[in-house]
Every structure is written in C-alpha cells, then in structure tokens.
C-alpha cells in the first residue's frame, strides 16, 4: 500500500512499546493463570510464564527487526519483496482473517464476562452490539488516534493491574507456593506453549512498524513491551497461586478477575470491587479489540487498495457481530479461542520462519 506522506511517521517507538503491552494484556491475561495451572503443579507455573515471556520477546525482537528493515513500508510491500506477490497477498489475507476472528472473540468474550459478573438480565447480544459500536467508532477515526487512545488508556490499565496485584498481596498464603519443581517436563513444555500463545499480541508490530517515524529502536521496544507484559503476567500468576492455590485455580474460569472479587478496599465504601475492576477490563478488552479490527481493516486495504476505510469498517461490522453470535454456549467460545490460539501460533511461526529465511537470503532494503 502506498501511503501518502501524511500517514508516515505518525507513531513513535514509545507508542509501539505501549501498544504492544496494551494489546497483549487482554482476555488471555484473565484466563492464563488457570491454563498454566492446569498443566503444572504447585507454583511451578512461574517458570513456564518466564520462559514463554523470554521466547515471545525474542520472537518479537526478531519480527520487529525484519519489519523495521523496511521503514515506512507496509507488510504487503516488504513481504512481496521477500517472498513473492501472490504469497504475500495470501499471507496478508490470512492475517486479516486471524485478526478478524480475534475481534469476534473479544466482542463475544466481553458479553460473556459482563453476563457473569455485572448484569444477569441484560441480553448478551445488546452488550456485544454496544461494545462493537464503540470499537467501530474508534476504528473509523485516524490510526494516530488509535495509538493516542492506547497511550491514554495505558495508565488506566497499569493502575487497574496494580490495584489487583497490591490489594491481593495481603491475602497470599505463602505456603501455597511451596513444593517447588514438582512438574514433569511435558507440563513445562505445555505451560510454555500456552504462555507464548498468551503473548502473541505483539504480532501487530508486523503491520504498525510501517507507521513508525524512525524504527531503529523499535525491535528493542517490542522486546521490552513483551517483557513488561511478562512481568505483569508473572506477578499475577504468583498472586493467584498464592491466594487461591493451584487446585482451586484449576477450577476457576477467570482467576485474575476472581482475584479482584476477593479483595476488600479499605474504607468500606465499595462493597464489591469487582464491578469497578470490570470497568478496567472493559477498557483493556476495548484496546485489544480495536487494534485487532484496525489491523483487519488495514490488511484488507493493503490487498484491496481502492477500499475506503469507512466502507471496510461498515462492511465488516455486521459480519463480526453475526459471527460473534454463532457459538451457542460459553464452552463453544472457549474451544473457539483454543483453536484460534493454536492457529495463531502455528501461522505466526510459519510466517516468521519464511520471512526470516527470505530476509537472511535477500537482506533488507532500507532505502526503499
């Protein structure tokens, strides 16, 4: 996609760092302690989270390195250069599909979460629809606006996470950690795998590096972003294990969210803290869903150049809505998410390896 000069360089390195963090922290942050706990024993999950984080940050650094060798070029352009045009088009379209599905998942997931914790009676369809409207409104704006939105919500996200973590520290049962290193090798492997899946949100740098003004430091920033998120995940995991213990956590759906239900805010004004934290999570879901939809629109418009952004958004939105309503029960949503996770990591590895090999052979062309 040939960008007009206005669109170039609207993003700074720091924005990428923040965007990576806000994009990775999402629904999976809520569930990941459970997923990890399912395959590990005692508190051993921290090793898998750590390993997963390091692997993910290496991957992030690597793809950002590839992408930043082609400053101000779109994913399609440099992939066409490295591989070939048809392959690049297919790849881009599969990415659109993947991010489209991510949006669908978030739209549905938010309704499910709110149904469970906030409203019992309000129909999920309405919740999803209103959420989707807000996401559409955000995506219809400028891309620079989306980045600013991420930056604007970043402090809210950090404050929300810190609240969850710090308020629960007093409830930690330190004995829950204790028998260390009880997990077998397969458990570690699976745990690491899930941790990496959890962190795959950094794949957006493939697409957004084209907007970065001077992408020299972007690989480093991407890696930092992933590491910071890994830090959050690690602490959240440890707190969850400390508070609930491994066995309890296996049976909780959203351990991170349940953490906030156990918390009592001193002062006694708010009886239930979780409803307020739900607001934080709405914002967190919103940023991730917005980025996903934006990438979908962006990748589609790379292939179909004459597509106006607003038209693309308007055409996609009903499809997103109806697709999100397809799974009948929440279990279907969960299995859908698991499939999406497997698909994402396999496809991501495939693309990374292909691009990596081609990059080694052809090298970057930083001079356009």
């Amino acid at each position, binding site marked *: 996609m040939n960008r007009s000069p206005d669109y170039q360089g609207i993003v*700074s390195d*720091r*924005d990428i760092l*923040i965007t990576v963090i806000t994009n990775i922290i999402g629904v999976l942050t809520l569930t990941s302690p459970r997923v990890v706990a399912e395959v590990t024993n005692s508190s051993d999950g921290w090793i898998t989270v750590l390993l997963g984080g390091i692997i993910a940050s290496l991957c992030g650094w690597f793809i950002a390195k590839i992408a930043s060798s082609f400053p101000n070029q779109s994913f399609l352009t440099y992939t066409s250069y490295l591989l070939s045009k048809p392959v690049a088009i297919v790849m881009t379209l599969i990415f659109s599909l993947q991010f489209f599905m991510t949006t669908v998942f978030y739209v549905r997931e938010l309704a499910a979460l*709110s149904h469970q914790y*906030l*409203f019992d009676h*309000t129909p999920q369809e309405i*919740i999803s629809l*209103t*959420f989707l409207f*807000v996401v559409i*409104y*955000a995506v219809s*704006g*400028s891309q*620079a*606006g*989306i980045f*600013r*939105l991420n*930056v*604007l*919500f970043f402090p809210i996200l950090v404050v929300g996470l810190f609240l969850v973590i710090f308020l629960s520290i007093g409830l930690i049962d330190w004995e829950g950690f204790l028998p260390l290193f009880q997990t077998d090798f397969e458990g570690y492997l699976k745990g690491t795998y899930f941790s990496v899946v959890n962190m795959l949100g950094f794949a957006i740098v493939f697409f957004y590096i084209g907007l970065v003004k001077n992408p020299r430091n972007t690989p480093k920033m991407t890696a930092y972003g992933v590491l910071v998120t890994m830090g959050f995940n690690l602490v959240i995991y440890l707190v969850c294990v400390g508070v609930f213990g491994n066995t309890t956590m296996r049976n909780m759906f959203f351990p991170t969210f349940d953490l906030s239900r156990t918390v009592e805010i001193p002062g*006694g*004004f*708010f*009886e*239930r803290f979780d*409803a*307020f934290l*739900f*607001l934080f999570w*709405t*914002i967190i879901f*919103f940023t991730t869903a917005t980025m996903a939809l934006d990438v979908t629109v962006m990748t589609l418009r790379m292939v179909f150049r004459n597509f106006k952004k607003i038209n693309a958004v308007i055409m996609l939105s009903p499809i997103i809505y109806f697709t999100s309503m397809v799974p009948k029960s929440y279990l279907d949503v969960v299995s859908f998410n698991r499939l999406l996770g497997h698909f994402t990591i396999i496809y991501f590895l495939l693309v990374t390896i292909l691009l990596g090999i081609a990059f080694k052979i052809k090298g970057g062309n930083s001079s356009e």
Partner: protein
Amino acid sequence: MRRFYRKVPRKNSTNKHQNSINTQHTQNDINGIQQEINVQQCQCNPQFQQNQKAQHIQGTRNNLNNENVGSQHSQDYQHTQSSIQSNQNIQFQQSIQCQCHLKNHQLQNQTQTQNHNQSQDNVQSQNQKTSQNQSPSLKQNGNANSNATQTNNQNVSMEIHVPIYKKMNNNIEFIRRLLGNPDDLVIRELTLETFNDNHENEQGDCPSSRSGHDDGNLPIQTLSDPENNDSKINQLNIIDERPLEKAKQKKQKIHCSILYLSGLSNTNIINDNILKTLQRKTNEFNGDILDQIYQEIIAVTETKRVNTLEQVVHALLSGRSIFLIDGKMTALDMGTAGSEKRALDEPQSEALIRGPRLAFIESIETNLTLIRRELKDPNLRFKMHEVGRRSKQKIAVCYVEGIVNPDILDEVNRRLKTIDIDFAPDSGVIEQWIEDSFLSPFPQLLDTERPDRVSYNLMQGKVAILVDGSPFALIAPISFVDAFLTIEDFSQRWIIATSMRLLRYFSMFIALFLPGLYVALISFHPGMLPTQLTISIAATREGGPLPAIVEVLLMAVTFEILQEASIRLPKVIGQTVGIVGGIVIGDVAVSAGIVGPALVIVTSLTAMSSFTIPNYSMSIGLRILRFIFVIAASIFGLYGIILVLIMICIHIVNLKSMGTPYSGPFAPYFIDALKNTFIRAPIMTLKKRPPYLEPIDDQKVNSGGQRQ
C-alpha cells in the same frame, strides 16, 4: 472551510443582479450626482477653451477624462472582480455599479460630441473589453473565479478605486448620499487663501491620481494605456506654454472642509489640533497646498493621504476625520478616532485571589496595549486581519516570533482569511468559524479575558487572536487540559498549586460522573455500596414515585434552569434566585417526597464541582456530557458509563485544535509537559515549552522563580 469559500462568488453575483434591478431608488440618486458631475465637466471645457491655457487645460482635461474613462472601465472591471470578492458594502457596490453603467453610456455620447475620434475608438474598444471582462465573471467562468479567489487570498480588504472628485461639493454630496445624510456627520467648511493657481494643483494631482490607479491591478493599466498615450501627445503641446502660466500667479481663495462623524471621533483633537491650527495659520500658502497643510498644520501624528472615496468613507466610519480641499483629488485621513470606552476592570468570568486583576475590554487597541505592556519583547507580533463584510472589524493575531511554530501560525492566518460574515458580535463567532470540529462539545480554542493568561500562553508558543469589540481573546492551539489550568497556579507554591490542580481534575470527574454513578448504583448495582448505605438510601426513596433516572434528570434540569436564570437576571434579583433555588426547591422537593435527600447532595455537589473548572466554555461542554452519562447509566449501568467514557476518549484523541492533537500532552505522552499540566512542578523545573506545539525555541528562559 474551502467549501464555504467557493460558494461566496456565486451568491454575490446574484446579489449584484438583484441589487441592480431592485434598487432603482439609489441608482437614480447616484445617477443624479453622476450627471451633475459630468455636466459640470462638460461645461467646464468650453470655458477653458477661451483661456490662454486652453490647450494645456484641455490636454490635462482630456488626460483626466480619458483617465477617468480608463479608470471607470477599470472600475467596471474591478467592480466585477470585487463583487466576486464581495468585501464591499453592498450599497457602495450599487453606487459604483450604476456609476459604471451610466459612465459607459455617457462617455460614448460625450466623446462623440467632443469629436474625439481617436478616443472614441478607444472607448468603444474598452467598452468591448469591459463587456468581455464583465460577461465571464457573470457567467462565473472558472477563470474569473480563480482570479478572484487568488486576489482574495492575497488581499482581504480589497479597495475599489472611486477617485475623489475634483469638486469638493461633489465629494461631500457623494459621502452624504452614501451614508444616507446622517445627522452625526459633521462638515466644517473653511476658506484658505493661497498664492497658488489651480493649474499647478491639477498638475500636482494628476500624477498622484494616476499613481493611485497604477497601484491597482494590471488590467487597469492595460485598459488605460491607450488613453495615456493620447494624453501624452497633448502634454507635449503644453510644455511650451508653461512660462506663461507661472507668471499668472495670483491670490486665490480655496474652499476646504473637515468631515467626521461625531461620537466616533475625539472632538478635542479635531478642534485643537486641526481646526485651531488651520485658523491660526497667518502666512499664505505656497506650492502644493495639500502638502503644506499635511507637513505644517495638521497636528495629528496618524495622518495619511487617501485617493479614493471608499477609503474616505471607511475612514469616516472608523471615527477618523477627513480633510478635503476643493480641486484636489487627494484627501487627508487623520487619526482622530476616540469614542467612549469602558474603563479597565477586573475579569468577571475568571476571578482569582492572587494575581493581576486586569481584564480586556471591548477596544482592540487597548487590548493590544495590555499585552504589549506585559511583554516588552521586540519579537512580539500583531498581525492584523479584517473581518465582517459590513462591520469591518479588526482582528489581531498575536504571537512571539521565534517561539511560535510557523506551521501553526500559518494555519491560524489561513483560517482567519476564510471567514466571511457580515458582523462578528464576539470572538466566539470567530472561534466557531475557525475551529476544527463543529460537532464537538469541547472548545477547541481557549477564551480568556485575562491579559496575563494571554501573555503566558504566548510564551508557551501559542497564538492569541483578539477581535475588535470583544473582551475575550482566543488562544490556539490548546489541549484538553488547558481549560483546567489557571494563571493562579503559578502564584502559589507548587505543592499547593499541584493539590489545587488535582482537586480540579477530581471535581471534573465528579461533575461528569456523579449523577450517572448515582443512577447506575441505585438502579443497577445496589450491591456495590455498603449495605447500610444502600438501605438508608432506599429508605429515603421509599415513598418516591419516580425511578432514579427521572429523579436525576428532573433535578439536573432544574439546576440548569436555575443557573441559566441567574445569568439572565439582574444582579439585584440574583440573590433571590439563590434562595429560591437552593433552599426552596432543594428542601421542599425532599420534604414533598419527590426526590430523595441523597439526590440533593448529588445534584449540588455536581453543580459545585462544575464551577471549579476555570473555563466557562469547557464547563458548559461538560454539563451537556453529564446528561449523556446519566442516560447511558440508566440503560446499561456502569457498563454504559464506561462505554460513553471510552467514546469521549475516542472523540478527544481524534479531535484537533489548529491541527495539533487535542489530547495534548496526555496522549502523545510528553512527560515534560505533564509536569505542567497534571501537576504543577516547582517553577524552577519548568524549563521547556510544551513539546506538542513543536515551538522553535523550546527552552524557556528560567532562572528560577520568575513569573513567566
């Protein structure tokens, strides 16, 4: 903006037609004057022909006439142009227009009777030219259009050259008729004695009037060129006879007059510095009388020469006075403007405890002085614009060269040039013309009546816009947080100032969310409040017939009505409103069982919180948003509130103020700027100007503790 801009020419061309058809009245009036003038000119010629200097005179006459022809045509041409540009008073347009039509016919007759074969051809050819020039502009061909828009870009205040007539009485009559013979037009006629003869004067005038035309556009020159050639031939004859003229100097009485509009002008200056000095003048004049008066007699510093009646009328309407001399085609425009002004006063809408207590007033000159008095920087610049087709108001763009980002400055100037209105009653009108999004509830330019706030913002690298007739200056570009800062933050120590700022942000959240939260908590999530509180609130609402949302809306609307009423009411009755609103409605509504006492707390707390916002425009914007929160909360509870909050955030990040992001220092995260927005760091550490403005000179001069 561009779109509006394009529309202008079309509207006006139709206007012009309508005017020329509908207002026969004025046309006839001015036709009358024109005929008079022409008859006089025609009559003059035979008289002079009998004179010795006949040929000379005739030469200059012809020259003049021909030049008039040229200028009339150029007027015609320019008129079509200017009507496209439409900066002119419509009445004035009419007068010139009919003048032009008339002239075209008359000139043909005149030239035929005078047997000027050569010039007749010229005139005819010019008529053709004019019609050619006129027709495309009427048809609105692209050419004329683009031409017009180009000139409009370059020169906002376009001038039509109706030269000042030689006969002073004609000028006065013209001005009188144009202004509708007003009572406040003061005309003081005088008689001066001179040694000089008329012909020298004419000679002296010719170049000036010609140069006046040459100042105009190129087409004029090409139109009047043939005439000039013609006149040059005549002038050749004259030179031989000059010695004869010089010998014929004699004492002459010259009529002149001072014109001004009483009330707009300072009569003392006119009496003391113009009239008195003129009357005291004992020795006679030699040489160019106008020049001598200008140099020696008029004791007004701001004096200049004007050549067109349009300038004369504009000067009169601006309160300046005009000095006309019979037989001169140049007038003096003297700066005697001085109407009544309001005294400098304390700011009414931005009061503060500690800090300067000076506010702008309605006069732009005074306001500019107030700024200059605070900033004695030679780089302080005032770029003047004119706005209002009929009001001709001045607008000043203030900035400090070397600090301001030139891109922002260009953008401000460009937008100001697109303004096309009759009259701007306040800077708020200008604000709405040039703001980025007219759908936004947030002000995208900051209005302030404090000169110190303007100076402070100029130092930040921003641009201030002052409008004549408005005591509110506009500051651009701003970010969301700018509306929450006061200049007093810098007067207090930083810990206190920071606390005050945080308090203001907190109260902004209360003003926005509290009614919505009340609705959400009462109707959706009663479990979130402590059980005791929930029970006690429920108990007070026990007998209430209304659901929470209706209660809240009722009270909120009541409060808005009270607030609006207290603004409109005279100050004396204002206190009554406080009693009626605060005590009667609040207390009685509760005891009547219509609303719960908790809601009265919520409403009053919300109201008080919204008053902590230092900027009124922002405060009313948030008042509107509060209702949206209430409605969203009544549908979706907390979830609705958070969705609306996200939507407002989306709106803010996409909003721009003069092309810079409105989310300002928050969203493109500039930590340095946060030091002076969210908190107020110690003044010694505030060393940089806001980076999102990308100022040229980003380092403040800061040697600790000085007021900036």
